[in-house]
């Protein structure tokens, strides 16, 4: 269970998040949508403390992450993250990218980590690309390696930070297909996305953000059929 309490975030004088309160229930899929600059990515990055909130609490499985720094890494281990720009380790092959944290964090033996990496990469359709370096992969392939890298840790939650924004439409589809396959497999998925149709398709809950605030948290069906706020209506009508 992930809980954000009274989170606010300022970059110098700019308010990026304003008094955010939200709970993420286990095994559900959440889509965070809203226009650019609404604070979606910052909110996501607060969950694993890549961004430290200016005020407020981040509570994961009962642990106050900001207070209890020694538990940060063990918690991060259980929260996978996939980034807009893939952020693969440039000096490691696809396989090594997946193996790295298994060896360093999970303290797996090399053979064991390798087997896990091969399995995860095969699952995302990259069995042929194990020994390729990131620069030899297409954008869609890179993102699938990044997903495999996150999944190999067997996280309870996985955060997607605009996973398809740097991809062309074809690659976007191949990555969305993989993300969709993770739906309701026991993980909590939290996805920041501009792919509204995709959000509608996969999410159980829509979190609609505007101007540093959460305006709406609704069941997906409800949100698309009758949004509560004017701003959400406007946002949706602009999407069509």
């Amino acid at each position, binding site marked *: 269970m992930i809980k954000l309490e009274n989170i606010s975030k300022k970059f110098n004088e700019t308010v990026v998040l304003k008094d955010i309160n939200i709970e993420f229930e286990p095994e559900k899929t959440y889509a965070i949508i809203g226009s650019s600059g609404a604070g979606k990515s910052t909110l996501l990055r607060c969950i694993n403390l890549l961004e430290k909130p200016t005020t407020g609490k981040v509570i994961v499985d009962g642990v106050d992450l900001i207070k209890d720094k020694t538990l940060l890494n063990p918690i991060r281990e259980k929260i*996978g993250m996939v980034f807009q720009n893939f*952020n693969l380790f440039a000096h490691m092959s696809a396989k090594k990218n997946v193996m*790295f*944290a298994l060896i360093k964090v999970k303290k797996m033996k090399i053979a064991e980590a390798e087997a896990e990496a091969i399995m995860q990469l095969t699952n995302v359709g990259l069995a042929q690309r194990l020994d390729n370096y990131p*620069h030899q992969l297409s954008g869609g392939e890179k993102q699938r390696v990044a997903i495999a*890298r996150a999944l190999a840790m067997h996280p309870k939650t996985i955060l997607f930070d605009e996973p398809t924004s740097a991809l062309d439409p074809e690659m976007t589809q191949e990555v969305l297909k993989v993300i969709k396959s993770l739906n309701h497999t026991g993980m909590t998925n939290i996805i920041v996305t501009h792919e509204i149709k995709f959000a509608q398709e996969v999410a159980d809950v829509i979190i609609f953000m505007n101007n540093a605030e959460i305006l709406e948290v609704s069941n997906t069906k409800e949100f698309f059929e009758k949004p509560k706020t004017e701003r959400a209506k406007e946002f949706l009508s602009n999407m069509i």
Partner: protein
Amino acid sequence: MKVNFEGIVEYIPYLLGGILVTLEIAIAAALLGSLLGLVFSLLSRKKGLLQIGIKAFIDFFRGTPLLFQLAFFHYGIPQITGIIPTPYISALVVFSLNSSAYLAEILRAGIESIDKGQIEAAHALGVNNWDISFNIIIPQALRNVLPAIMNEFITLVKETSVVSLISLTDLMRRQQIVSAATYRFFEPLLVIGVIYLIMNIVLSNIGKVLERKLKYD
């Protein structure tokens, strides 16, 4: 006066002996300097008093001539402390600190060249700072600045020639001794010049091989 190597033939083994002295100082200073430089570059990433101290240290060693540093350490400081170091110790200390200052700056640039996203990704996976530094940042930083590091090592080999100031019998010092004994300059100078050149060509080739080995794109 014509060029005549016969007069200095008997001194050639003596001149060649200088290679050891030169290499000893250069290699020891390169190793110590690299280690210190790496430590400084990592420590100076955090703002604070330490960062200011390291910056002052680097400014001193980059902003004054090496010859001055050697004289200052070997002749200047002992006047105050009363402790007179051996020439070898002085050379080792000054050259190590001097290269550490240059290497710290080179490595800092290398570290800053690493894309922050990779570091974030590692943090998100729960990797600790030590493993991030030594497995993600440093291998890529080293690869990016390897040519600059090799350049620094080549400079180091050449600059060891100033140790003749504190009467260490390196290549340069031995040439002066041989010249004084034989009244010949061209021949011994030519010999040590060729030796310096060969050492640095070897060094630069080692650099190229390393660059190829570390290549991943």
